[in-house]
């Protein structure tokens, strides 16, 4: 019984649910504000994403007559549920060590593509040619960025497991880093860390990889036909996904807490964790987005195949040799 309560708490309130939503909206607002300042604009207030959601919630939902209504309504809900569950299994160094037995890299490999699948379902169900284009673009890009993701997961697992074999449990990976220092500063893991940092804009579709939802090309692709609360759910999905990928990278690369112990230390560690997420956000999303434009689908695909995957594979190879 307590297990179920604990899991429900994790999914609905902390670290998933409300906490992930609030953090995501805050990160999104910061991203927009900083991007605006980088482009010498004033930019929206920090709470603009919240206002956007409230506005969309009051709007009418329009569903194209040719769309598959069930799939059309299901897609955003599926995506949001998926990311909320994923957020719930993300451990936070010094604050939360994850739901027992759930924080596993293999499970993450299944959970992480759910938002992309939600978008694909949306693109397919909306019966618009732009949605279909967005669908195929999302799928192509997913194939491209999953490869380096899996390779860097394996690199981390092999490195952490050492001679005893590979370790796939997130809490164990964090424990290793508490003892041996962050993997970010491990020269062997540096290429994989870079690959992981490049994975973030890939999966978030920012900067070079704003391909599936490219506004001037496919008019936001899968989201084109969405309006009102359903679109708001997609926006929420996107902000929680941002939290998930940032927290994942933090957990794999630098989860070390600021102070040890409980009480006020937990709050300090939480603030420290949010700071790390912010820094990562600035590097991998905001500045990346400000400094680049969008690649064509084929160019984006080959970017991951040519540069990102080999980086992760180098780390994997080195980790194997140094076991």
């Amino acid at each position: 019984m307590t297990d179920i309560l604990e899991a429900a708490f994790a999914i609905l309130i902390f670290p998933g649910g409300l906490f992930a939503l609030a953090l995501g909206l805050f990160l999104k607002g910061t991203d927009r504000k900083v991007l605006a300042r980088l482009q010498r604009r004033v930019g929206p207030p920090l709470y603009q994403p919240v206002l956007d959601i409230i506005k969309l919630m009051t709007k009418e939902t329009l569903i194209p007559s040719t769309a598959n209504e069930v799939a059309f309504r299901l897609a955003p809900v599926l995506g949001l549920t998926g990311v909320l569950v994923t957020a719930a299994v993300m451990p936070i160094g010094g604050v939360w060590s994850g739901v027992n037995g759930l924080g596993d890299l293999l499970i993450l490999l299944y959970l992480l593509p759910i938002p992309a699948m939600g978008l694909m379902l949306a693109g397919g169900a909306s019966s618009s040619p732009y949605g279909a284009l967005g669908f195929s673009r999302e799928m192509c890009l997913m194939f491209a960025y999953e490869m380096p993701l899996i390779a860097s997961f394996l690199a981390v697992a092999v490195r952490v497991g050492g001679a005893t074999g590979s370790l796939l449990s997130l809490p164990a990976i964090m424990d290793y880093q508490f003892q041996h220092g962050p993997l970010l500063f491990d020269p062997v893991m540096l290429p994989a860390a870079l690959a992981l940092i490049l994975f973030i804009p890939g999966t978030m579709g920012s900067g070079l990889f704003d391909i599936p939802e490219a506004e001037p090309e496919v008019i936001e692709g899968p989201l084109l036909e969405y309006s009102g609360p359903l679109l708001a759910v997609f926006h929420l999905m996107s902000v929680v996904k941002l939290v998930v990928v940032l927290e994942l990278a933090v957990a794999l690369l630098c989860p070390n807490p600021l102070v040890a112990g409980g009480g006020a230390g937990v709050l300090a560690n939480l603030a420290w964790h949010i700071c790390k997420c912010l820094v990562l956000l600035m590097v991998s999303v905001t500045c990346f987005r400000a400094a680049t434009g969008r690649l064509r689908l084929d160019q984006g695909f080959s970017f991951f195949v040519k540069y990102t995957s080999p980086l992760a594979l180098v780390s994997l190879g080195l980790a194997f040799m140094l076991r």
Partner: protein
Amino acid sequence: MTSTTYTLPVGPLHVALEEPMYFDIQVEGETVRSVELAAGHVHRGMEALAMQRNYFQNVTLTERVCSLCSNSHPCTYCMAVENLSGILVPQRAQYLRVIADEVKRIASHLFNVGIMAHLTGFDSLFMHAMEIREIMQDAKEGVYGNRMNLGQCIISGCRRDIDDSTGPFLLGQLELLKPQLDELYGVFERDPLIRTRTRGIGLLSFEAAKRHAVVGPVARASGVAYDVRRKAPYAVYPDLDFEVQTDTKGDVHSRALLRLREAVESVKIIKQCLRQMPEGPINIKAIPPIPPGEAVARSEAPRGELFYYLRSDGKDTPQRLKWRVPTYMNWEALQDMLANCQVADIALIVNSIDPCISCTER
């Protein structure tokens, strides 16, 4: 059509298009197989309106054909009227017209390359280009009192003079603009993303450019050195020192760079005009009646050759006023440029001819 192709409707309302136009595109995967263009969404009946208004009212009307070349239209119209009635425009007014035209050309070209950066998703560069364009907008507002429609041209000359206060201000804005324009050119020339996205797409060969009789920067980027300012000089262009920019690559990238180089040339032209401009009247107070007959005039608008035909039967309204705009010549060439391109490049290629739909459909 086989089942592997499907129709991608682009327009008439589409975020990548500034103005309504419809492309019926057959797509196979991400590759464009055929393109049909359909126009007529912003037809306002301006040529019919022009026949119901007198010669003076038509100056105001033609200024409102389109906002980005809003000086070229009234200017060319006035030239046609002056050709018909034999009015001699004072020398100072000729210089003033050239200045207004070139100021608009800089702003128009910067707008186009800015939009190109936006279409590649490089919004920081878009903001940067628009910020630089803002210098020219300030110049327009300071000198003519308006950011888009300058209201400078009237039959027989110009409305406003550039005096001791506005002249140095305009010169100051140009001094401010020049280094930033050079910097922007470097960014567009060397930025890896812009190069990756825009080089080698939307190709228009020299032969194809000749066949479609394209005009303006589209023609010049394909190696056709056709510029009305040199081929059929008007106003004071023969007295001015500038170079017609050409390129041989004929792709989207070369067209953008060519526009930026032309903007630099325009800065040069305005500076010369401010230096050489003689003293004197800027228009003729008493205008003779417009005699029966017909006349043409052409000029180089930012998008290419603009052509006006005027026929008069001696009344105070034109019997017929017709104009041919550069986009009309250029958009047929889109069929060639869009052939077998990627869906992602459609917007970039269409933008590279700098289409002005409201000019074309009027």
